[in-house]
């Protein structure tokens, strides 16, 4: 989470709001911020840290582990129309890659804006595809992995 926070300015520039959430109470969130996060990162985590008591929200989002009593690492991208665009769920041992999150947001924003689609591994400025009958069977002419 501190890793996401360290790229906060980039997320802000893309008009992205970040919400972190775990089953811990708001009181623990505050203490964690003061005792640890502010030492990892100047000013601590700048976005809201939400509480999910009993994992109710995690259950609805498919990330609550009843046996452990915690929400596992699930990340969801929601577009301005309130539709879920992407989800990534990891077991707790492996941390996320905030750079990949940024890349996906840029790709979704590009797609929404232009109606084009982005091929595998697309980065801003890279080749995009315009779906339609003319492209069927011809992708190889314009894009290779």
């Amino acid at each position, binding site marked *: *989470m501190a890793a996401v926070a360290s790229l906060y300015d980039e997320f802000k520039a893309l008009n992205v709001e970040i919400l972190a959430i775990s089953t811990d109470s708001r009181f623990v969130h505050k203490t964690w911020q003061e005792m640890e996060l502010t030492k990892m990162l100047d000013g601590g985590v700048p976005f809201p840290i939400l509480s999910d008591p009993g994992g109710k929200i995690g259950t609805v*989002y498919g990330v609550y582990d009843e046996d452990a009593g915690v*929400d596992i690492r699930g990340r*969801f991208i929601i577009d301005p129309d309130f539709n879920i665009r992407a989800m990534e769920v990891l077991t707790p041992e492996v941390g996320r890659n905030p750079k990949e999150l940024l890349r996906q947001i840029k790709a979704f924003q590009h797609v929404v804006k232009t109606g084009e689609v982005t091929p595998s591994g697309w980065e801003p400025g890279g080749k995009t595809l315009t779906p339609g009958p003319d492209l069927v069977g011809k992708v190889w002419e314009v894009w290779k992995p």
Partner: protein
Amino acid sequence: MGRLKDDCVAPTKGPIIPEGGDRAGEAIDLKKGGVDMLVRVGKEAVDFETSAYIEGYGFKPVKLSDYKGKWIVICFYPGDFTFV
């Protein structure tokens, strides 16, 4: 540093039933069962309301739909004071 606020005085709803039916806006009752996972890629996000800690502000109820119109990233994580 100014005094932090505590706006979390009333209980929050947790997951909220979407618009459209008679019970729109009410809390989703998970005890009734049948709720394994409601969210899907390409479908509308399930709204929720819960308490939050916000740096420099204090405690505040946060509702997901308050952020409608912006891009939102929700990051679930296993727990405070662990590596994240």
